[in-house]
């Protein structure tokens, strides 16, 4: 089994003003891990921002007493982010709306999960000490 280590482990209150700081920290860590710069500055930045936004606004309902935890684990071949909120979770498989289809293009919402899926190598959701959205980015 490939060796892995925790590259980042932070917890923030449920307020969108904290997203930028966490994303900056994560992209910096990503670059330090010698992952291609565009993957850090574009893929990670966007996907993690969207996951955090969902966790804060939907998972935790923006309730100030609740928290979101972000944990990143790096191994030889991939970088894995777990974004954990205190919500009941959702059916990821059922969330398959295509915001690029003509009938959805003019809608204001529905692009977050789509972007996560397009920019990460995998997106998973499960329950483990909270509602976890796991974003996996392969190094190459």
């Amino acid at each position, binding site marked *: 089994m490939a060796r892995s280590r925790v590259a980042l482990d932070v917890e923030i209150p449920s307020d969108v003003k904290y997203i930028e700081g966490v994303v900056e920290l994560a992209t910096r860590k990503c670059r330090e891990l010698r992952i291609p710069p565009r993957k850090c500055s574009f893929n990670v930045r966007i996907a993690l921002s969207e996951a955090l936004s969902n966790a804060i606004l939907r998972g935790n309902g923006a309730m100030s007493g609740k928290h979101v935890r972000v944990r990143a684990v790096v191994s030889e071949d991939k970088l894995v982010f777990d974004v954990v909120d205190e919500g009941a979770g959702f059916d990821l498989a059922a969330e398959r709306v295509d915001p*690029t289809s003509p009938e959805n293009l003019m809608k*204001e919402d529905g692009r977050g999960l789509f972007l996560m899926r397009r920019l990460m190598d995998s997106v998973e959701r499960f329950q483990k000490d909270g509602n976890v959205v796991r974003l996996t980015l392969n190094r190459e």
Partner: protein
Amino acid sequence: MSFAISKQGEVVVVDVEGQLIVGNRQELKQKVLDELEKGEKKFLIDFSQTGYIDSSGLGVLVSLSKKIREQGGELRLANLNDDLQTLFELTKLDTLFQISDTRERALESF
């Protein structure tokens, strides 16, 4: 992060400085809607000083586009960097908006 509004001829120009994200999208929306309410019809949003737009920021642009069009107006975008261009292409919003390379070209396009 801020939004600077200026007028160039008949066009209201909005410079987005920093990011257009979930934390500030409503501010942009309100500023543009205030101008629309005053009777302005032509809008250009310039992203030359913008690092990042998230999905909620994209959503606000779609919403503003609809509202401006409903009032008989036009919304144009300019100066997307490579990452923002890719973001618009991924979401196919490049097909919805008229996007120019420079502010000058965008202003000429009205």
